[in-house]
Protein backbone atom coordinates (compact mmCIF):
# COMPACT_ATOMS: atom_id res chain seq x y z
CA UNK A 1 0.00 0.00 0.00
CA UNK A 2 2.91 2.32 0.56
CA UNK A 3 6.53 2.47 -0.47
CA UNK A 4 8.82 5.37 0.27
CA UNK A 5 12.54 5.89 -0.22
CA UNK A 6 14.65 8.54 1.47
CA UNK A 7 18.33 9.31 1.01
CA UNK A 8 20.71 10.28 3.76
CA UNK A 9 24.43 10.35 4.50
CA UNK A 10 25.76 9.01 7.76
CA UNK A 11 29.19 10.00 8.99
CA UNK A 12 31.75 7.34 9.81
CA UNK A 13 31.09 5.48 13.11
CA UNK A 14 28.06 7.72 13.74
CA UNK A 15 24.73 6.67 15.25
CA UNK A 16 21.80 8.82 14.13
CA UNK A 17 18.04 8.91 14.59
CA UNK A 18 15.93 9.29 11.45
CA UNK A 19 12.19 9.94 11.07
CA UNK A 20 10.47 9.18 7.79
CA UNK A 21 7.94 11.66 6.42
CA UNK A 22 4.60 10.34 7.64
CA UNK A 23 2.83 7.86 5.37
CA UNK A 24 -0.83 8.53 4.55
CA UNK A 25 -3.45 5.78 4.44
CA UNK A 26 -7.11 6.20 3.52
CA UNK A 27 -9.40 4.01 5.64
CA UNK A 28 -6.85 1.26 6.28
CA UNK A 29 -8.10 -1.93 7.89
CA UNK A 30 -7.91 -1.29 11.63
CA UNK A 31 -6.76 -3.69 14.34
CA UNK A 32 -9.51 -4.64 16.79
CA UNK A 33 -9.42 -6.67 20.01
CA UNK A 34 -10.98 -10.13 20.19
CA UNK A 35 -14.74 -9.87 19.79
CA UNK A 36 -14.78 -6.37 18.31
CA UNK A 37 -13.57 -7.00 14.78
CA UNK A 38 -10.64 -8.33 12.81
CA UNK A 39 -7.03 -8.12 13.89
CA UNK A 40 -5.82 -6.52 10.66
CA UNK A 41 -2.01 -6.50 10.57
CA UNK A 42 0.23 -4.85 8.01
CA UNK A 43 3.75 -5.96 7.04
CA UNK A 44 6.06 -3.01 7.62
CA UNK A 45 9.56 -3.41 6.22
CA UNK A 46 12.35 -0.93 6.76
CA UNK A 47 15.54 -1.57 4.79
CA UNK A 48 18.75 0.34 4.16
CA UNK A 49 20.99 0.11 1.12
CA UNK A 50 24.44 1.65 1.08
CA UNK A 51 26.04 2.97 -2.09
CA UNK A 52 28.74 0.67 -3.43
CA UNK A 53 27.72 -2.01 -0.96
CA UNK A 54 24.10 -2.92 -1.59
CA UNK A 55 21.59 -4.03 1.00
CA UNK A 56 22.95 -3.41 4.50
CA UNK A 57 20.14 -4.26 6.92
CA UNK A 58 16.42 -4.99 7.03
CA UNK A 59 13.76 -4.96 9.73
CA UNK A 60 10.18 -6.21 9.48
CA UNK A 61 7.21 -6.07 11.81
CA UNK A 62 3.51 -6.93 11.72
CA UNK A 63 1.86 -3.62 12.62
CA UNK A 64 -1.76 -2.91 13.55
CA UNK A 65 -3.40 0.48 13.04
CA UNK A 66 -5.32 1.09 16.26
CA UNK A 67 -5.84 3.78 18.85
CA UNK A 68 -6.00 2.69 22.50
CA UNK A 69 -7.18 5.19 25.10
CA UNK A 70 -7.91 4.69 28.77
CA UNK A 71 -8.76 6.85 31.74
CA UNK A 72 -9.99 6.47 35.31
CA UNK A 73 -13.75 6.83 35.43
CA UNK A 74 -14.75 9.17 38.25
CA UNK A 75 -18.04 7.37 38.87
CA UNK A 76 -16.56 3.90 39.37
CA UNK A 77 -12.89 4.74 39.99
CA UNK A 78 -12.23 1.97 37.45
CA UNK A 79 -10.18 2.32 34.30
CA UNK A 80 -12.25 2.64 31.11
CA UNK A 81 -10.73 1.66 27.78
CA UNK A 82 -11.58 2.77 24.25
CA UNK A 83 -10.29 1.14 21.09
CA UNK A 84 -10.47 3.17 17.89
CA UNK A 85 -12.92 5.45 19.68
CA UNK A 86 -15.21 2.58 20.73
CA UNK A 87 -15.68 1.77 24.42
CA UNK A 88 -14.83 -1.85 25.28
CA UNK A 89 -15.87 -4.02 28.21
CA UNK A 90 -12.65 -5.62 29.43
CA UNK A 91 -12.80 -9.37 29.99
CA UNK A 92 -9.35 -10.27 31.16
CA UNK A 93 -7.23 -12.85 32.88
CA UNK A 94 -4.05 -12.90 34.93
CA UNK A 95 -0.83 -14.14 33.39
CA UNK A 96 2.29 -15.02 35.29
CA UNK A 97 4.46 -16.92 32.87
CA UNK A 98 4.45 -19.82 30.48
CA UNK A 99 6.82 -22.14 32.38
CA UNK A 100 8.68 -21.97 35.70
CA UNK A 101 11.92 -23.11 34.06
CA UNK A 102 11.48 -20.47 31.29
CA UNK A 103 11.18 -23.11 28.57
CA UNK A 104 9.37 -20.50 26.50
CA UNK A 105 8.28 -21.52 23.02
CA UNK A 106 6.26 -19.85 20.28
CA UNK A 107 4.15 -23.01 20.05
CA UNK A 108 3.31 -22.86 23.76
CA UNK A 109 2.57 -19.14 23.60
CA UNK A 110 0.27 -19.68 20.61
CA UNK A 111 -1.64 -22.40 22.41
CA UNK A 112 -1.95 -20.48 25.67
CA UNK A 113 -2.99 -17.24 24.01
CA UNK A 114 -5.44 -18.81 21.56
CA UNK A 115 -6.99 -20.49 24.62
CA UNK A 116 -7.57 -17.07 26.18
CA UNK A 117 -9.16 -15.82 22.94
CA UNK A 118 -11.35 -18.91 22.80
CA UNK A 119 -12.46 -18.13 26.35
CA UNK A 120 -13.72 -14.86 24.90
CA UNK A 121 -11.13 -12.78 26.77
CA UNK A 122 -9.91 -9.52 25.30
CA UNK A 123 -7.12 -8.66 27.77
CA UNK A 124 -4.23 -10.45 29.52
CA UNK A 125 -2.57 -8.84 32.53
CA UNK A 126 1.13 -9.69 32.91
CA UNK A 127 1.73 -9.68 36.69
CA UNK A 128 4.67 -7.66 38.05
CA UNK A 129 6.25 -10.65 39.83
CA UNK A 130 6.60 -12.52 36.54
CA UNK A 131 8.28 -11.41 33.33
CA UNK A 132 8.18 -8.59 30.87
CA UNK A 133 6.72 -10.93 28.30
CA UNK A 134 8.55 -11.75 25.14
CA UNK A 135 7.96 -10.64 21.51
CA UNK A 136 6.54 -14.08 20.70
CA UNK A 137 3.91 -13.61 23.44
CA UNK A 138 2.95 -10.23 22.01
CA UNK A 139 2.94 -11.55 18.45
CA UNK A 140 0.18 -14.01 19.28
CA UNK A 141 -1.69 -11.39 21.30
CA UNK A 142 -1.56 -9.24 18.15
CA UNK A 143 -2.83 -12.18 16.09
CA UNK A 144 -5.68 -13.16 18.43
CA UNK A 145 -6.69 -9.70 19.64
CA UNK A 146 -5.68 -9.94 23.30
CA UNK A 147 -4.87 -6.52 24.73
CA UNK A 148 -1.89 -6.65 27.13
CA UNK A 149 -1.52 -4.90 30.49
CA UNK A 150 2.21 -5.21 31.20
CA UNK A 151 3.55 -4.55 34.68
CA UNK A 152 7.13 -3.70 35.57
CA UNK A 153 9.05 -5.67 38.18
CA UNK A 154 7.58 -4.33 41.45
CA UNK A 155 5.19 -6.25 43.73
CA UNK A 156 3.56 -5.13 46.96
CA UNK A 157 4.68 -8.26 48.80
CA UNK A 158 8.37 -7.86 48.00
CA UNK A 159 8.56 -4.08 47.74
CA UNK A 160 7.37 -2.50 50.95
CA UNK A 161 3.99 -4.06 51.76
CA UNK A 162 4.81 -7.66 52.51
CA UNK A 163 5.45 -9.66 55.66
CA UNK A 164 8.18 -8.91 56.65
CA UNK A 165 8.11 -5.38 55.22
CA UNK A 166 11.16 -5.21 52.93
CA UNK A 167 12.67 -3.19 50.11
CA UNK A 168 10.54 -0.10 50.81
CA UNK A 169 12.67 1.69 48.22
CA UNK A 170 12.48 -1.10 45.63
CA UNK A 171 15.60 -2.56 44.02
CA UNK A 172 19.05 -1.36 45.07
CA UNK A 173 19.97 0.02 41.64
CA UNK A 174 17.31 2.38 40.30
CA UNK A 175 19.38 3.29 37.26
CA UNK A 176 19.57 -0.40 36.34
CA UNK A 177 15.79 -0.68 36.77
CA UNK A 178 15.26 2.26 34.39
CA UNK A 179 17.81 0.90 31.91
CA UNK A 180 15.94 -2.42 31.85
CA UNK A 181 12.56 -0.66 31.62
CA UNK A 182 13.65 1.53 28.70
CA UNK A 183 15.14 -1.41 26.84
CA UNK A 184 11.99 -3.45 27.44
CA UNK A 185 9.82 -0.63 26.08
CA UNK A 186 11.95 -0.51 22.93
CA UNK A 187 11.63 -4.28 22.56
CA UNK A 188 7.80 -4.32 22.82
CA UNK A 189 6.45 -0.88 21.87
CA UNK A 190 5.44 -1.67 18.26
CA UNK A 191 2.95 -4.40 19.14
CA UNK A 192 -0.71 -3.56 18.49
CA UNK A 193 -1.81 -5.55 21.55
CA UNK A 194 0.28 -3.53 24.05
CA UNK A 195 -2.40 -1.51 25.79
CA UNK A 196 -1.04 -0.38 29.15
CA UNK A 197 2.25 -0.17 31.05
CA UNK A 198 1.76 -0.46 34.81
CA UNK A 199 4.40 0.38 37.45
CA UNK A 200 3.88 -2.74 39.54
CA UNK A 201 1.48 -5.08 41.28
CA UNK A 202 -0.37 -3.65 44.30
CA UNK A 203 2.39 -1.12 44.81
CA UNK A 204 3.55 2.15 43.34
CA UNK A 205 7.23 1.99 42.37
CA UNK A 206 9.65 4.20 44.34
CA UNK A 207 9.00 7.87 43.56
CA UNK A 208 12.01 8.46 41.30
CA UNK A 209 11.33 5.32 39.27
CA UNK A 210 7.61 6.10 39.02
CA UNK A 211 8.25 9.66 37.85
CA UNK A 212 10.81 8.47 35.28
CA UNK A 213 8.44 5.81 33.95
CA UNK A 214 5.54 8.28 33.71
CA UNK A 215 7.76 10.80 31.98
CA UNK A 216 9.20 8.34 29.48
CA UNK A 217 5.90 6.66 28.71
CA UNK A 218 3.63 9.64 28.21
CA UNK A 219 2.28 9.90 24.68
CA UNK A 220 4.38 12.37 22.70
CA UNK A 221 2.41 15.67 22.41
CA UNK A 222 2.74 15.40 18.64
CA UNK A 223 0.36 12.44 18.71
CA UNK A 224 -2.12 13.97 21.16
CA UNK A 225 -4.52 14.76 18.33
CA UNK A 226 -8.29 14.37 18.50
CA UNK A 227 -9.51 11.78 16.02
CA UNK A 228 -12.20 14.21 14.86
CA UNK A 229 -11.50 16.30 11.76
Amino acid at each position, binding site marked *: *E*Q*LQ*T*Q*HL*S*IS*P*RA*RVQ*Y*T*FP*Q*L*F*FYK*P*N*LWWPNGMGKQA*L*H*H*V*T*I*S*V*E*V*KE*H*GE*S*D*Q*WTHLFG*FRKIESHIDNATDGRLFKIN*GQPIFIRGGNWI*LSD*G*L*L*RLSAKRYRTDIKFHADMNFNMIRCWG*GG*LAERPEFYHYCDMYGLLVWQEF*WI*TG*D*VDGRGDPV*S*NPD*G*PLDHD*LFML*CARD*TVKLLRNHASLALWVGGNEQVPPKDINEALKNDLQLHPYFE*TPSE*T
Partner: protein
Amino acid sequence: MAEIGKTKLDSGWLAARSTDVELTGTQLTTTHPPTGPTAPWMEAVVPGTVLATLVKNKKVPDPFYGLQNEAILDIAISGREYYTFWFFTTFQCKLTGNQHLDLNFRGINYSAEVYLNGHKMVLPKGMFRRHSLDVTDILHPDGQNLLAVLVHPPDHPGSIPPKGGQGGDHEIGKDVATQYVEGWDWIIPIRDRNTGIWDEVSVSVTGPVKIIDPHLVSSFFDNYKRVYLHATTELENKSSSVAECSLNIQVSTELEGNVCLI
Protein backbone atom coordinates in the same frame (compact mmCIF):
# COMPACT_ATOMS: atom_id res chain seq x y z
CA MET B 1 29.13 -13.17 1.27
CA ALA B 2 27.14 -13.99 4.43
CA GLU B 3 23.39 -13.39 4.05
CA ILE B 4 22.06 -10.21 5.66
CA GLY B 5 19.80 -10.93 8.66
CA LYS B 6 19.46 -12.76 11.96
CA THR B 7 20.33 -16.37 12.73
CA LYS B 8 19.21 -17.85 16.05
CA LEU B 9 21.73 -19.90 18.02
CA ASP B 10 19.25 -22.31 19.65
CA SER B 11 20.77 -25.73 19.14
CA GLY B 12 23.94 -27.65 19.90
CA TRP B 13 24.58 -25.89 23.22
CA LEU B 14 26.48 -27.65 26.03
CA ALA B 15 26.50 -26.73 29.73
CA ALA B 16 28.62 -27.54 32.77
CA ARG B 17 28.68 -26.43 36.38
CA SER B 18 31.41 -23.80 36.72
CA THR B 19 32.94 -25.54 39.75
CA ASP B 20 33.40 -28.70 37.66
CA VAL B 21 35.37 -26.94 34.90
CA GLU B 22 39.04 -26.20 35.53
CA LEU B 23 39.58 -24.37 32.24
CA THR B 24 39.24 -20.64 31.61
CA GLY B 25 36.90 -19.12 29.06
CA THR B 26 39.88 -18.32 26.90
CA GLN B 27 41.01 -21.96 26.90
CA LEU B 28 37.46 -23.21 26.28
CA THR B 29 37.21 -21.04 23.16
CA THR B 30 40.68 -21.66 21.77
CA THR B 31 42.76 -24.70 22.73
CA HIS B 32 40.40 -26.82 24.87
CA PRO B 33 36.81 -26.60 23.61
CA PRO B 34 34.45 -29.28 24.99
CA THR B 35 34.00 -32.02 22.41
CA GLY B 36 30.49 -33.13 23.33
CA PRO B 37 28.08 -34.02 26.16
CA THR B 38 30.63 -35.93 28.20
CA ALA B 39 30.95 -35.17 31.91
CA PRO B 40 31.04 -32.54 33.23
CA TRP B 41 29.41 -31.24 30.03
CA MET B 42 25.78 -31.99 29.16
CA GLU B 43 23.29 -30.98 26.51
CA ALA B 44 21.91 -27.54 27.40
CA VAL B 45 18.46 -25.94 27.03
CA VAL B 46 19.07 -22.53 25.42
CA PRO B 47 17.05 -20.43 25.66
CA GLY B 48 16.17 -21.74 29.10
CA THR B 49 17.51 -21.86 32.64
CA VAL B 50 20.15 -23.86 34.47
CA LEU B 51 17.41 -25.89 36.14
CA ALA B 52 15.78 -26.62 32.76
CA THR B 53 19.12 -28.05 31.61
CA LEU B 54 19.50 -30.13 34.79
CA VAL B 55 15.93 -31.46 34.48
CA LYS B 56 16.46 -32.30 30.79
CA ASN B 57 19.59 -34.30 31.70
CA LYS B 58 17.82 -35.91 34.67
CA LYS B 59 20.42 -34.54 37.07
CA VAL B 60 17.49 -33.44 39.25
CA PRO B 61 13.88 -34.62 39.33
CA ASP B 62 11.22 -32.53 37.61
CA PRO B 63 10.27 -29.97 40.30
CA PHE B 64 6.67 -29.77 39.08
CA TYR B 65 5.75 -33.33 40.06
CA GLY B 66 4.70 -34.20 43.60
CA LEU B 67 7.14 -32.95 46.23
CA GLN B 68 10.18 -33.45 44.01
CA ASN B 69 11.17 -29.81 44.35
CA GLU B 70 12.13 -30.65 47.92
CA ALA B 71 14.86 -32.93 46.53
CA ILE B 72 16.54 -30.10 44.65
CA LEU B 73 19.18 -28.07 46.48
CA ASP B 74 18.09 -24.48 46.92
CA ILE B 75 20.59 -21.79 45.96
CA ALA B 76 20.33 -20.34 49.48
CA ILE B 77 21.88 -23.55 50.82
CA SER B 78 24.21 -24.43 47.93
CA GLY B 79 25.54 -20.92 47.33
CA ARG B 80 25.56 -19.03 44.03
CA GLU B 81 28.54 -20.97 42.59
CA TYR B 82 26.45 -24.16 42.50
CA TYR B 83 24.13 -22.56 39.92
CA THR B 84 26.85 -20.59 38.11
CA PHE B 85 27.10 -22.42 34.79
CA TRP B 86 29.14 -22.45 31.60
CA PHE B 87 27.23 -22.61 28.32
CA PHE B 88 29.16 -23.46 25.15
CA THR B 89 28.39 -23.61 21.44
CA THR B 90 29.95 -23.05 18.03
CA PHE B 91 28.66 -21.19 14.99
CA GLN B 92 29.73 -20.78 11.41
CA CYS B 93 30.08 -17.35 9.85
CA LYS B 94 32.27 -15.96 7.08
CA LEU B 95 31.91 -12.27 6.37
CA THR B 96 33.13 -10.50 3.26
CA GLY B 97 34.07 -6.91 2.45
CA ASN B 98 32.27 -4.36 4.56
CA GLN B 99 30.01 -6.77 6.46
CA HIS B 100 29.60 -6.75 10.25
CA LEU B 101 28.40 -9.34 12.77
CA ASP B 102 26.58 -8.69 16.06
CA LEU B 103 26.15 -11.34 18.78
CA ASN B 104 22.81 -10.69 20.51
CA PHE B 105 21.44 -11.90 23.85
CA ARG B 106 17.78 -10.93 24.38
CA GLY B 107 17.79 -11.96 28.06
CA ILE B 108 20.42 -13.12 30.56
CA ASN B 109 19.57 -13.78 34.21
CA TYR B 110 21.45 -12.24 35.87
CA SER B 111 24.94 -11.36 34.53
CA ALA B 112 27.53 -13.12 32.37
CA GLU B 113 30.97 -13.18 30.85
CA VAL B 114 31.17 -14.02 27.16
CA TYR B 115 34.23 -15.59 25.51
CA LEU B 116 34.43 -15.75 21.72
CA ASN B 117 37.51 -17.26 20.12
CA GLY B 118 39.51 -16.37 23.24
CA HIS B 119 38.25 -12.81 23.62
CA LYS B 120 36.37 -11.88 26.80
CA MET B 121 33.37 -9.50 27.00
CA VAL B 122 31.14 -8.75 30.00
CA LEU B 123 27.32 -8.74 29.97
CA PRO B 124 26.31 -6.42 32.84
CA LYS B 125 23.65 -7.26 35.43
CA GLY B 126 19.90 -7.10 34.80
CA MET B 127 17.42 -9.75 33.71
CA PHE B 128 15.34 -7.52 31.45
CA ARG B 129 17.86 -5.94 29.10
CA ARG B 130 19.21 -6.94 25.72
CA HIS B 131 22.91 -7.19 24.92
CA SER B 132 24.39 -6.71 21.44
CA LEU B 133 28.13 -7.20 20.89
CA ASP B 134 29.91 -6.25 17.65
CA VAL B 135 32.19 -9.27 17.20
CA THR B 136 33.25 -8.55 13.60
CA ASP B 137 36.92 -8.19 14.43
CA ILE B 138 37.23 -11.36 16.55
CA LEU B 139 35.67 -13.88 14.20
CA HIS B 140 37.73 -16.84 13.14
CA PRO B 141 39.16 -16.50 9.60
CA ASP B 142 38.09 -20.06 8.81
CA GLY B 143 34.51 -19.23 9.80
CA GLN B 144 34.25 -21.70 12.69
CA ASN B 145 33.66 -19.73 15.92
CA LEU B 146 33.75 -20.97 19.52
CA LEU B 147 31.44 -19.27 22.04
CA ALA B 148 31.38 -19.79 25.83
CA VAL B 149 29.15 -17.90 28.28
CA LEU B 150 29.58 -18.01 32.07
CA VAL B 151 26.22 -17.11 33.61
CA HIS B 152 25.93 -15.90 37.22
CA PRO B 153 22.70 -16.04 39.30
CA PRO B 154 21.01 -12.93 40.69
CA ASP B 155 23.09 -11.10 43.32
CA HIS B 156 20.40 -11.52 46.01
CA PRO B 157 18.81 -14.97 45.58
CA GLY B 158 17.48 -14.83 49.15
CA SER B 159 16.38 -17.79 51.23
CA ILE B 160 13.01 -19.42 51.77
CA PRO B 161 11.60 -19.11 55.34
CA PRO B 162 10.27 -22.40 56.73
CA LYS B 163 6.72 -21.07 56.38
CA GLY B 164 7.32 -20.08 52.71
CA GLY B 165 5.16 -17.09 51.89
CA GLN B 166 4.92 -14.56 49.10
CA GLY B 167 8.39 -13.97 47.71
CA GLY B 168 10.31 -15.79 50.45
CA ASP B 169 12.48 -13.35 52.40
CA HIS B 170 12.04 -10.74 49.58
CA GLU B 171 15.81 -10.45 49.00
CA ILE B 172 15.29 -11.02 45.25
CA GLY B 173 13.57 -7.62 45.22
CA LYS B 174 16.98 -5.97 45.59
CA ASP B 175 17.80 -7.06 42.03
CA VAL B 176 16.05 -6.19 38.75
CA ALA B 177 14.77 -9.67 38.13
CA THR B 178 11.56 -11.66 38.24
CA GLN B 179 10.31 -11.89 41.81
CA TYR B 180 8.13 -15.02 41.83
CA VAL B 181 11.23 -17.23 41.96
CA GLU B 182 11.42 -17.28 45.77
CA GLY B 183 7.98 -18.87 45.73
CA TRP B 184 4.48 -17.46 46.08
CA ASP B 185 1.11 -18.78 47.24
CA TRP B 186 0.70 -20.36 43.80
CA ILE B 187 4.20 -21.67 43.05
CA ILE B 188 7.09 -23.44 44.74
CA PRO B 189 10.47 -21.68 45.09
CA ILE B 190 12.57 -22.04 41.93
CA ARG B 191 15.86 -23.47 43.19
CA ASP B 192 18.14 -21.65 40.68
CA ARG B 193 16.01 -18.41 40.72
CA ASN B 194 15.68 -18.80 36.90
CA THR B 195 19.43 -18.29 36.32
CA GLY B 196 20.44 -18.77 32.71
CA ILE B 197 20.40 -17.65 29.10
CA TRP B 198 16.65 -17.35 29.40
CA ASP B 199 15.85 -15.73 26.06
CA GLU B 200 16.92 -15.81 22.43
CA VAL B 201 20.58 -15.80 21.34
CA SER B 202 21.29 -14.76 17.77
CA VAL B 203 23.92 -13.45 15.40
CA SER B 204 22.97 -10.80 12.88
CA VAL B 205 24.87 -9.93 9.72
CA THR B 206 24.66 -6.37 8.42
CA GLY B 207 26.48 -4.26 5.92
CA PRO B 208 28.12 -1.02 7.07
CA VAL B 209 24.82 0.48 8.30
CA LYS B 210 22.63 -1.18 10.94
CA ILE B 211 18.96 -0.48 11.72
CA ILE B 212 18.29 -0.20 15.48
CA ASP B 213 14.92 -0.32 17.30
CA PRO B 214 12.51 1.32 14.83
CA HIS B 215 9.45 2.92 16.43
CA LEU B 216 6.09 2.88 14.62
CA VAL B 217 3.21 5.15 15.68
CA SER B 218 -0.12 5.73 13.96
CA SER B 219 -2.29 8.86 14.22
CA PHE B 220 -5.95 9.09 13.23
CA PHE B 221 -8.18 11.84 11.82
CA ASP B 222 -11.64 12.26 10.26
CA ASN B 223 -13.09 9.47 12.31
CA TYR B 224 -10.34 6.98 11.40
CA LYS B 225 -10.61 7.59 7.66
CA ARG B 226 -7.39 9.58 7.43
CA VAL B 227 -4.53 7.66 9.05
CA TYR B 228 -0.81 8.39 9.19
CA LEU B 229 2.07 6.07 9.99
CA HIS B 230 5.06 7.73 11.64
CA ALA B 231 8.32 5.75 11.64
CA THR B 232 11.51 6.64 13.46
CA THR B 233 14.62 4.50 13.59
CA GLU B 234 18.16 4.67 14.80
CA LEU B 235 20.90 3.94 12.28
CA GLU B 236 24.52 3.18 13.00
CA ASN B 237 27.32 3.52 10.44
CA LYS B 238 29.90 0.99 11.59
CA SER B 239 32.31 1.76 8.81
CA SER B 240 35.12 4.30 8.71
CA SER B 241 33.74 6.15 5.70
CA VAL B 242 30.63 8.20 5.02
CA ALA B 243 27.68 5.98 4.13
CA GLU B 244 25.40 7.22 1.34
CA CYS B 245 22.15 5.46 2.20
CA SER B 246 18.81 4.75 0.58
CA LEU B 247 16.31 4.14 3.33
CA ASN B 248 13.10 2.34 2.33
CA ILE B 249 9.88 1.81 4.18
CA GLN B 250 7.27 -0.48 2.68
CA VAL B 251 3.83 -1.27 4.05
CA SER B 252 1.86 -4.16 2.64
CA THR B 253 -1.33 -5.70 3.81
CA GLU B 254 -2.24 -9.34 3.69
CA LEU B 255 -5.48 -9.88 1.78
CA GLU B 256 -7.42 -13.08 2.35
CA GLY B 257 -5.21 -16.11 1.95
CA ASN B 258 -1.68 -15.44 0.86
CA VAL B 259 -2.30 -12.61 -1.58
CA CYS B 260 -0.28 -9.52 -0.66
CA LEU B 261 -1.15 -5.99 -1.82
CA ILE B 262 1.83 -3.64 -2.02
